């Protein structure tokens, strides 16, 4: 080979072509993503049903839900240690245990879960107590206008206007996908605000405080919309989940 002595700086500019080709493929990927994603999701869903290793869950969109926590660690609560407090501008503040919540009439909703970052889990059943029932039981005072939610991760907060909170599709959820809510999904009790992006559905719910005005929640102080209607906020136009 030494006799060949090619000048290394001549020759075809393949490097540039590979770089531009990669960029082009990336752009093509963004353009064709909706189609590709649908195909891949249905393939992966069927593959993960038969996958005993759970490895397919690590592939993008393979498992559906993604775990988000803003706290460094989240304590675990169960039927004996869990408490939900309802207070603020109410006539009868009170604290519920998990068995007490389970004893109340349960509502089951089957809607799509839509995350503001793009992932969606279709037809997900949630089951729990209507928030409006807890508010009515507490006796909301006349001057109240909003509801604030706190969580036992110690960090996350959310808010709804009183009108939003009284909607029939807003639940204090105890079950998801017909199973008791696990810790990773915000169990034992989370909020479920069906018509809004999923960051409104605060996990590890521990407090419901009736307030005068809406106080922006954790992500809302970091730029997300407070009124997070799916398809009509955060610059998105997804199919509504109502």
């Amino acid at each position, binding site marked *: 080979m030494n006799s060949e002595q*090619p000048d*290394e700086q001549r020759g075809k*500019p393949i490097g540039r072509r590979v770089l531009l080709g990669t960029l082009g493929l990336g752009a093509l*990927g963004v353009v064709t993503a909706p189609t590709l*994603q649908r195909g891949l999701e249905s393939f992966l869903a069927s593959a993960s049903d038969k996958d005993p290793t759970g490895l397919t869950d690590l592939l993008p969109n393979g498992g559906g839900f993604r775990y988000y926590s*803003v706290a460094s660690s989240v304590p675990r609560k169960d039927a004996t240690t869990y408490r939900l407090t309802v207070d603020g501008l109410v006539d009868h503040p009170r604290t519920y245990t998990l068995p007490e919540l389970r004893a109340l009439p349960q509502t089951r909703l089957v809607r799509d879960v839509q995350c503001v970052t793009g992932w969606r889990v279709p037809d997900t059943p949630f089951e729990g107590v209507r928030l409006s029932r807890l508010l009515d039981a507490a006796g909301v005072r006349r001057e109240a206008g909003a509801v604030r939610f706190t969580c036992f991760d110690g960090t996350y907060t959310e808010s709804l206007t009183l009108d939003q909170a009284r909607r029939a599709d807003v639940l204090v959820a105890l079950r998801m996908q017909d199973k008791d809510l696990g810790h990773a999904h915000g169990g034992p009790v989370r909020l479920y605000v069906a018509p809004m992006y999923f960051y409104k559905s605060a996990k590890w719910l521990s407090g419901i405080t009736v307030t005068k005005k809406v106080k922006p929640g954790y992500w809302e102080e970091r730029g997300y919309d407070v009124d997070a209607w799916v398809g009509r906020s955060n610059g998105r136009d997804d199919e509504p989940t109502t």
Partner: protein
Amino acid sequence: MSLRLDAPTGAVRVRRFSRAERWVHRTTAALMGVCVVTAACLYVPQLAELVGRRELVVRLHEWAGLALPVPVLAGLASRAFRADLRFLNRFGPHDRVWLRAALRRDKRAAARPAGKFNAGQKIYAAWIAGATLVMLGTGLMMWFTHLTPLVWRTSATFVHDWLALTIGIVLAGHIGMALGDPEARRGMRTGSVSREWAEREHSVWRP
């Protein structure tokens, strides 16, 4: 004064990388490392549960990603680095021979003629540069949520996720090959390699 057994005094050392080239590689590697580790903590559920602190991890990931092209851009100030980019860009007849041998899994050095960079390194460099830019573009679309029309963001997430997985695999290959070649690593660490290694692994290279 190093008197290492594998580099006895008197052995001829060949200059391979200047300080600028090594720093470009080092800082790019560090930033890419931050991107990969934070991405794993955002993405793998077990790690996400372990680490939490989503806001902090997201910020780290975003800024490391944004800074990722900076070392290469700064490196353009170096004549040696610009020459490397030209070497990486141009493919000669020997590169075709190298690629054929690689496809046949022919590992004999004589079957794999290479200039300063072999054809595999050239393709890797071009691909990872393109992939980094795609990650940067899709990442910015996800970061600034009001920037693009909307279906785009879901699409950007999709491309970002799958390309991340691909980059992870390719990067593991890159690191694995470096682990298998101590002299190549020494070249990147100290700037020079043994003449014997240079003639065997990069027969067409004229340092």
